[in-house]
């Protein structure tokens, strides 16, 4: 049954240019806006943190071992307290952002690109090529990912590159299977047939017609996966086969602080909070993006952007 609501589709004012429009939509939705702001801060930390603060972060001061937080006597660096070797926590978190982001970002990007491409091929080409790709994905999936990581990292040295590689491989099937399933569905849609009718090449059909439809889904998965990879990295670091000291990541900081949880909770709490806030921001932003990237749903955000003080349409 059609409600009349669907019959009256808005004919909006002439559209502004892409980026500006997206930004004004983001400004209107406070929560995703805050998330985006937080992520910008994290990215800034990751980029400039080690360059500015590495000296401070690595400065051991045994008198300040497990120094409690919110104590300004030791200077601003110790506002979040000190760790087991008396190093200030805040600068360490800032510095660790780089490794954490690099590993998680690198692994997600690599698995996203490889998995997405293979999924597109498997879904679009089909037949035995698709079968081979799918069985490969099954092999990866049937192997416990942590065990794979342990074996590989035990044999190779535990560098950041290898860590990214291992984490990427274990996450490939997620993108691969999702992409393939979506492609199988989208390629049967009428507008893809209409493009075939016009004589469009396979490349054109994939890039112009199939990819835009499945990209929002993949991006949503990628942001969710970002959090997962961060946690997986900390698990590996915890086992001692991930990042090695003096390199630091948030995951490593959490695992190092674990033994002091009863008397110095802040050692594990602050890096843990950083992980939680980052993943939450990513999730918020990704669910907002899913709507913003879909032209048939975008009006929900646009109407709230144009009406002053409009509420969010989560």
């Amino acid at each position, binding site marked *: 049954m059609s*409600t009349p609501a669907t019959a009256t589709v808005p004919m909006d004012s002439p*559209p502004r240019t892409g980026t500006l429009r997206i930004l004004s939509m983001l400004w209107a939705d406070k929560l995703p806006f805050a998330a985006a702001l937080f992520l910008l801060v994290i990215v800034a930390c990751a980029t400039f943190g080690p360059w500015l603060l590495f000296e401070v972060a690595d400065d051991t001061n045994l008198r300040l071992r497990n120094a409690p937080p919110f104590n300004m006597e030791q200077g601003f660096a110790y506002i979040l307290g000190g760790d087991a070797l008396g190093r200030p926590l805040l600068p360490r978190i800032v510095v660790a952002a780089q490794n954490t982001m690099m590993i998680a970002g690198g692994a997600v990007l690599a698995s996203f690109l490889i998995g997405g491409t293979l999924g597109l091929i498997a879904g679009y080409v089909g037949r035995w090529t698709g079968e081979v790709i799918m069985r490969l994905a099954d092999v990866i999936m049937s192997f416990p990912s942590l065990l794979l990581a342990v074996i590989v990292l035990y044999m190779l040295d535990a560098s950041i590159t290898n860590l990214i590689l291992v984490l990427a491989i274990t996450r490939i099937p997620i993108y691969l299977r999702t992409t393939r399933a979506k492609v199988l569905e989208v390629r049967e849609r009428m507008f893809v047939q209409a493009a075939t009718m016009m004589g469009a090449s396979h490349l054109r059909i994939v890039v112009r017609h199939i990819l835009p439809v499945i990209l929002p889904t993949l991006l949503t998965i990628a942001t969710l996966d970002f959090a997962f990879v961060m946690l997986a990295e900390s698990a590996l670091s915890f086992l001692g086969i991930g990042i090695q000291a003096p390199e630091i990541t948030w995951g490593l900081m959490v695992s190092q602080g674990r033994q002091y949880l009863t008397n110095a909770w802040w050692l594990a709490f602050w890096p843990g909070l950083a992980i939680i806030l980052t993943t939450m921001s990513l999730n918020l932003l990704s669910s907002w993006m899913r709507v913003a990237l879909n032209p048939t749903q975008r009006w929900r955000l646009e109407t709230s952007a144009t009406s002053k003080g409009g509420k969010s349409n989560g």
Partner: protein
Amino acid sequence: MADHLLEVRNLSVRFHTAQGVVNAVNGISWHLDKGETLAILGESGSGKSVSASAIMNLIDMPPGEITCGEILFDGIDLLKASVEDRRRLNGKRIAMIFQHPLSHLNPVYPVGWQIAETAMAHGRGKAEAYDRALALMERVGIPNARAAMAKYPHQFSGGQRQRLMIAMALVLKPEILIADEPTTALDVTVQAEVLSLLEELKAETGMGLLMITHDLGVVAEAADRAVVMERGRIVETGTPHELYYNPQHPYTRKLLAAAPGKGEMRSTPAAAAPILRVQDLRKSYGGFQALKGATFDLHAGETLAVVGESGSGKSTIARLILRLEEATAGCVLWQGDDLLTKSPRQMARVRRQLQMVFQDPTQSLNPHMSVFQIISEGWAIHRDIVPKVQWKARVAELLQQVGLEPGHALRVPHQFSGGQRQRIAIARALALEPEVIICDEAVSALDVAIQKQVIDLLGELRNRLGIAFIFIAHDLPLVGDFADRVLVMQAGEIVEQGTVRQIFDAPQQAYTQRLLFAGLDADPDIHATRRSARLAMARG
């Protein structure tokens, strides 16, 4: 004015949407008596379904809101009754059937169980419920009813599914049956059968039948009285006869004028050379033969209609010619070359000359592309048609040609109505300057008035640009004033072909006659004669 079976008084419903408040219906009143069929006629968005939803308590609140009015049934105002009371009424005394029976039948249960379940839910014993289900399935004309009870919904045809829905609705002997577009998804011949079944059942049980439809033909065929709705208001009420011969409101007149089948039939133009020759085209899926050897010619500038019920293979022909699917055998000669043996690369070059307009523009236009991108895409593929600097001007020109504004180019498809979307699809086909356009049920999903506009547009383009059309349709009246020649298809075979006049005035095959008689005309008097002809055929 008491003692109506059901009475709606001054009902107003509005919906709160992101664009503000939409008044779906505005102070409408109507009533339904025992043993009467009332049709609510309107286009999509006219609010014709809203009052039925209000009766069945199907309006989501929010965003919906019933602002005023009352619905009187058996002395109770339904809008003031408790949820519990209304649930006891729904299904038991007021039942409803829908447009798409498949989506309202649960695919994982046998149909016999589903019908019996309704009875059991209202406190009948199991054996009694199953007996009733069996009796009803026999009554609605399901062949071999006892065995059919154990079958699942997907094992029935569309018409049978609608019969099952009717059986399910009748389990508890309702006093009112609400039918929301009950035959829209069905073939014409099946449509006529389902409508006459409803009428028989109404006569047997004395229930009131509320029929919601956009089809003037359905009103003429089945209704005792009709209410015409436009934009949430009732503009006119009367018997189908009064409405047809003496329409008072301009909107009713507009609807009637748009009904197909009243224009002059086209006289066949002088035979030009055939540009497309289809010879013994076949397609089988496994052991099933979808197309059993089709042979026909298409001449330059000619409009060839392909008519048949669903499953007759008419869409298969289009898909085979355009190589959306590979044919099993046969050949398609386009300007002397066989299309079916061309390599994909050669085929891509030929495609610009053969374009297609699909049934549902919502699905055939990429929702992520702007109108400009959609129309200009063909030029990006075939670079010699329009140089890039002229794209903008040419898109504007094409949009004007199909009756849209050049300023629409930057919008995305969902910002348009169904009819406008189909115009965009036509503009996209025209952009490639094709010689043949294949329309696969291109207007079937549109409202009558819009259907007429699109048909007029196609006719104008045909006259101006000399494009040949293959027009696939299930609706014979529509074809009557648009096509030059007609192919009639049944079960994968062409059973009859000829000029429109030959097919309409002197159909040779019984199947063609049946299609003609089953087609619903807006004129109630024509219906009476056709109905008797149909009865005579059924007896003979």
